[in-house]
């Protein structure tokens, strides 16, 4: 067996720990939504969702042990493209009202 394959063989214990963390984070999202935090609520919800995705990507999808450089490039690249889309959309929305 090649060493890279050995790394990918994450143990069951790690999976269960990640799953427990994911469920706890879901609970935190739910209870945070019940609090009166105003504009923070959506930011907290998105931050937790981001953390959860990070856990799924790194452990369940094995990105953490991915050795190939291309994975370290294409994924952030897509995130940046997405961020540019968001920024363009919202800069459009924010300034649209002023122009008749």
């Amino acid at each position, binding site marked *: 067996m090649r060493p890279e*394959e050995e790394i*990918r*063989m*994450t*143990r*069951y214990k790690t*999976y*269960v720990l*990640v*799953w427990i963390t*994911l*469920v706890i984070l*879901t609970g935190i*999202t*739910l209870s945070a*939504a019940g609090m*009166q*935090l105003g504009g923070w*609520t*959506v930011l907290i*919800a*998105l931050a*937790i*969702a981001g953390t*959860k*995705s990070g856990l*799924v*990507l790194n*452990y*369940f*999808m094995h990105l953490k042990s991915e050795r*190939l450089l*291309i*994975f370290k490039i*294409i*994924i952030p690249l*897509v995130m940046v*493209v*997405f961020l540019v*889309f*968001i920024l363009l*959309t*919202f800069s459009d*929305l924010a300034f649209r009202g002023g122009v008749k």
Partner: protein
Amino acid sequence: METHKDVISPKLGMWLFILSELILFGGMFILYSAYRYKNPVDFHHASRELEVLLGTLNTVILLTSSLSIAASITAIQRGQRKLSIYLLIATMALGLLFLVNKGFEWGTKIEYGIYPNSPTLLARAKGEVLFYGLYYVMTGLHGLHVLVGICIFLVMLVFIVKDRINQAHLAPFENSGLYWHLVDIIWIFLYPLFYLIT
């Protein structure tokens, strides 16, 4: 005859597909945020009517199914074929359970006359119409992905039983697992954005 197996290309292809899926859903998430930004109060009112309990339950179901499919793939890698099959069946059952819950949720809404273009919905505020439009399209497309995932797993199950997927050859199985985790990640974002607007 000795054959050289390429492990990288199938995985890279799968990841490119996953990224294109993220952009597909990403476009809808941007549409959602733009409309929510314009109609914050309507979105809040409409979101109130969704069943938070069912949404939360479905989140836990999908997270658990991600665990079981990850473990199922590890089991195949370790040569624990039987365990892998059980875990795969559990994953499919959880996926079905998710769809059943979703069906009940949609069913109740439709019973109340809330579905795209329904007279009851159109009589409501503009933002609520937009919210439910996005709700049906996004959870619908996501549900379709869950359904496709279950079908792929069914094929994988047959392959494992027929020993066409085993310790030495499991790239398709790993890729179907990646697909399932993607579906899970999309739900991780759909859940707070639709069920938990305050």
